[in-house]
């Protein structure tokens, strides 16, 4: 056990391991690239949907249940399915990562919008604000903390799951996990796993800090309504 940890330490800190096309630096960048693009696309799909159903109050049942369905999708199964349809490309990776992130963002955005005090909304309308003014100047700012939480959760999940890119022959930190398992190289498996975990936690903490900074003058949104 001690020996394993020592070897793991060497693996994580050796300069040779960090450089080159198979090096940690390259894999880390690939991993971030997959994760960033997937989260961005997911946000572009999920935010409008969440805002719309939150604003109109319509379609919530359908959207939330579809989201639940999306969360239950086994990612590896989805990767294989898309792979068989699309062939060897990045499509399987992005489709499954986006499918993973969309439900979290939709449900959190909707929750944020639903938590906006109806009296505030009525007051805004009563002052003669148009629907888009109500949405963007009243509801959205109030819902923003929960929306941010959704984005943060999605980001963490995507980073932790982007290892599946290696399952279909691509890079990212998952390469170490899959190659290590195939070569019975436990140190490499653990090294990859540790890097993914550290990356996910670091991103989560960083986004949490941004969130705290942005909303430091605001009381926590109450969901008691």
């Amino acid at each position: 056990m001690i020996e394993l940890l020592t070897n793991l330490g060497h693996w994580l800190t050796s300069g040779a391991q960090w450089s080159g096309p198979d090096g940690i630096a390259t894999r880390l960048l690939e991993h971030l690239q997959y994760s960033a693009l997937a989260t961005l696309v997911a946000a572009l799909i999920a935010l409008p949907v969440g805002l719309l159903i939150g604003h109109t109050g319509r379609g919530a049942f359908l959207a939330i249940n579809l989201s639940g369905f999306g969360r239950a999708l086994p990612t590896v199964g989805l990767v294989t399915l898309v792979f068989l349809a699309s062939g060897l490309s990045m499509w399987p990776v992005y489709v499954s990562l986006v499918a993973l992130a969309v439900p979290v963002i939709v449900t959190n955005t909707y929750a944020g919008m639903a938590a906006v005090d109806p009296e505030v909304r009525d007051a805004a309308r009563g002052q003669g604000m148009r629907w888009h003014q109500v949405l963007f100047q009243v509801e959205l700012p109030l819902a923003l903390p929960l929306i941010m939480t959704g984005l943060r959760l999605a980001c963490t999940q995507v980073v932790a799951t982007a290892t599946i890119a290696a399952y279909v022959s691509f890079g990212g930190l998952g390469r170490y996990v899959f190659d290590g398992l195939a070569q019975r190289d436990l140190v490499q498996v653990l090294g990859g796993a540790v890097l993914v975990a550290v990356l996910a936690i670091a991103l989560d903490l960083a986004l949490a800090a941004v969130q705290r900074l942005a909303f430091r003058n605001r009381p926590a949104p109450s969901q008691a309504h």
Partner: protein
Amino acid sequence: MNRRKLLGGLLAGASVPTLAACSGGITSLKGDGAGGGQGGGSSAGGLVIGTANFTENQLLGYLYAEALGGAGIKTSVRPNLGSREIVIPALQQGDIDLLPEYQGNLLLHFDDKAPQTQAGDLQNALTVALPNGLEALSYAAAEDKDVFCVTRETADKHGLRSFSDLKKQNGKLVFGGPAEDKNRVVGLVGLKNRYGVTFKEFKALDASGPLVKGALKKGDVDVANLFSTDPDIEANGWVILADPKALIPAQHIVPVIRGAKADTKVRKALAKLGGALTTHELARLNKLVDKEKKDPDEVAADWAADHGLTKK
């Protein structure tokens, strides 16, 4: 007096081992009578057959049960126990008595530097390498080994029939297989060192699974590492490239048994099964279970009856 004493002593001394030999003879006769003759062990108490956690190995376990049942030996099957790291210790500890194995991989499990790749050499090496108490019986005609395949079109286009032919396309073809292929001898390293073959790119996919087969079908990879008993090879008309320098170790199905249970009846029953079971037949049985969703024990029972191993 002295002489008589000596004689008496001799007689007395001799009688003890004789008696011991007699009683030993009686017990061993008993064992032989029930077990059917030479071979060291006895199957009289029945055999527990274990299998690893994949379809083909389970099928083989049930086939063993049918073949032994046909020879009047009681068996029970414990399918799906796990990987080699689990089933071999189970065999050594006597939790199971018999296990369907694969020559090359089994030898590497006990001796990871073993150089043998041909069936006969592997069988001899196994006899030496297996730990005390375990024994490899006659191997089957059927073999589940790594094969490197190309599509019919690729084979015709580049005139590919064997690994040697791949050299003409050095740096142009894409190889797909499980991640371990990149760094092992039965993979890119061996192809390069023994045949001088290099590829444009290596794609780490799965082991004869949906990914690598899908990629081969779509042309995303040109050469794919598959298993010889994969029914999709025949279904798609894929070409198995020949291996004239015997790079890839033979993987004939071989029964591994606890010596204590190995008697002539068991040996003969399993050898008879091994003679009838070809790679083509095993691939067909795999397909019945994997594609047509039949139960492995029923598939095994039907096959054994059709091939005269059991009475219908």
